[in-house]
């Protein structure tokens, strides 16, 4: 069996589900003949036809809005936004309609859409091409928000997202689109949309991340291991609804936690996770949860994106602080 990349796993999941369910359609800018600017829909139009894989005119608000209409009539639209930096015109439709249709009609109509977008920095792209504003979507009631971090999880989570009866925003960490290859059985098996994944077990500290940042999280864990420090690494995967249980289970062992995300710190998803940890596991904590995040500034043009992104050194510094923390007050 072939080893495939994360982006190829996306294509594979789309193809599997299109084959299985004639109500699945794929559309967006350049997703047809061109196969998407990242080739995530490569070959789908040739295989499933122009009726099911459609290039849209250039208008993200439109893409989001027609998906709502389609979904209310029983289709399973999978809409691609070319980059997360261009998803903002779609926010109104996602927030005001997709996420509310079921509730508004008390279940009469629903909105099983998947909104896909490549996201994140680190690929030396032009302005607006390196955004990670997942927190905006995490705040929206009625949505699911998913970020895969490996080919297998991309495959299983995307299948789950398409089959889910409610709207899902599915963000693909483009920095690791082609970072690793993995065997992914094309079995059509979905992964759960409400569970975090423990990527590495450990008992000294819990590192929580999602998407591309897991690369650095795992690297830090490796480095720590050489010093005999065992870090547990959790991939949140589904950011909303959040699987706090897996996190608390981990903290019962480690009592210490560092959160990592590329997005700006202020009101980022890290704040929610940290708050829930404090609410549910206050007494377990031997040190304040630390967040290692993008700075509270605009994502820089690429010459300085390295300074912005939370790299291994910054994570390591935070880990050491958390490990060395000695409570000064409560005890």
């Amino acid at each position, binding site marked *: 069996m072939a080893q495939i990349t994360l982006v190829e796993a996306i294509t594979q999941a789309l193809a599997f589900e299109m084959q299985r369910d*004639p*109500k699945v*359609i794929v559309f967006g800018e350049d997703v047809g003949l061109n196969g998407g600017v990242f080739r995530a829909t490569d070959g789908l139009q040739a295989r499933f036809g122009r*009726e*099911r894989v*459609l290039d*849209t*005119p250039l*208008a993200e*608000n*439109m893409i*989001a*809005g*027609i*998906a*709502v*209409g*389609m*979904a*209310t*009539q*029983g*289709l399973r*639209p999978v809409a691609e936004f070319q980059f997360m930096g261009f998803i903002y015109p779609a926010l*109104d*439709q996602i927030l*005001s*309609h997709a996420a509310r*249709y*079921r*509730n*508004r*009609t*008390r*279940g*009469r*109509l*629903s909105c099983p859409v998947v909104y896909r977008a490549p996201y994140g920095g680190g690929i030396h792209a032009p302005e607006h091409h390196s955004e990670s504003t997942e927190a905006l979507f995490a705040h929206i*009631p*009625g949505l*699911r928000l998913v970020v895969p971090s490996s080919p297998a999880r991309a495959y299983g989570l995307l299948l789950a997202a398409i089959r889910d*009866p*409610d709207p899902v925003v599915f963000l693909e960490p483009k920095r690791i689109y082609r970072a690793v290859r993995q065997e992914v059985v094309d079995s059509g098996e979905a992964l759960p949309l*409400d569970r975090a994944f423990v990527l590495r077990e450990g008992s000294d500290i819990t590192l929580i991340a999602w998407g591309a940042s897991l690369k650095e999280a795992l690297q830090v864990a490796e480095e720590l291991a050489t010093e005999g420090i065992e870090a547990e690494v959790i991939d949140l995967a589904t950011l*909303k*609804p*959040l*699987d*706090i249980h897996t996190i608390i289970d981990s903290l019962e062992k480690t009592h210490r936690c560092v959160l990592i995300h590329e997005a700006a710190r202020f009101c980022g998803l890290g704040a929610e996770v940290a708050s829930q940890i404090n609410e549910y596991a206050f007494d377990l904590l031997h040190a304040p949860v630390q967040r290692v995040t993008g700075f509270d500034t605009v994502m820089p043009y690429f010459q300085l994106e390295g300074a912005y992104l939370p790299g291994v050194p910054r994570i390591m510094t935070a880990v050491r602080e958390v490990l060395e923390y000695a409570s000064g007050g409560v005890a």
Partner: protein
Amino acid sequence: MHKPRMQLLASFDIASLQYLDESGQTTQALPDFATPDTLVALYRQMTLARMVDDRAVKMQRTGQLGTYPSSLGQEAIGVGVGAAMAKEDIYCPNYRETGALLERGVRIEEIYAIWGGDERGQNYRHAREDLPLSVPIATQMLHGAGVAFALKYKHEQLGEPIRAAVTSGGDGATSKGDFYEAINLAGDWKLPLVVVINNNQWAISLPRSGQTACKTLAQKAIAAGIPSLQVDGNDVIAVYQAVLEALQQAHAGGGPSLIEAVTYRLCDHTTADDASRYQPQEGLKEAWSKEPLRRLRTYLEGLGIWGDAQEEELQRELREILEEAVRVYRQTPRDTPTAIFEHLYETLPEAFIEQYQQLQGDS
């Protein structure tokens, strides 16, 4: 000075349609559907729409309803649209088309529930595939395009029957990108979509003239490469005929079209508004002379099939229907607080169970 010589590339015309003028006289031969029975039925529905609106405004004034947007003076549009649609077509409305909702089978008590602050109103017993009311201006037009795509797809790819989508919006809606993006896509993808603009001359306090430099709203369709026309929106026959033709085109695979129905908002924007702050009295008086019910009644009277007796009987019948609906609306108990979680997702994720239980405890 230099005068460049240009080559003509394309020409476009915008035309208007009317059958019944403001005095109730026909301006041309009526279309085939306009039998006395049909016209009486349309008159009945317009009368009902006016009564439903009127009662809603009264209930709002006495605290029995929230903010309400009446369609006073614009009944011919809603009723014309709703009557011309096939049952199987899908309606994607804004918030001001009482007549269309009634034609689609939405129950009066459901309309009242919606404006009474109860989502259950949108869970129509009939018209179950129609979209709910849409409050954010013009957003529903994109839904309309999506619905039209789905209907076309399900027909062509999945062998389901031919159907079309109808979406409506106000003159104000034509300034919003959503409107334009919807018609452009519909033209591009040749979607079975009919876009009806209720040009009631006002978007809250902004007159039509302040909304755009365009001479007509119908001409906006030229930007999408789709056909359009203006109709007398106070002439239910013209509205009906225009929507019927547009739907025939849509059903036949001929793609979308746009209808600007010209009317006048004879009421406040909503019960939360005070139009006297900005609306000149003269305009209002002139508009009353053109309103849609009287002209149709005059015409029916001219045909000798309508008079005070029929009118009284109709009023009596409709009052009964209305009272019954009001009764049902008033007697419906409030939804339980936990309902705010019960339809958020198909199955409430575990992460929110704690909040759900807290709410159960609170109430």
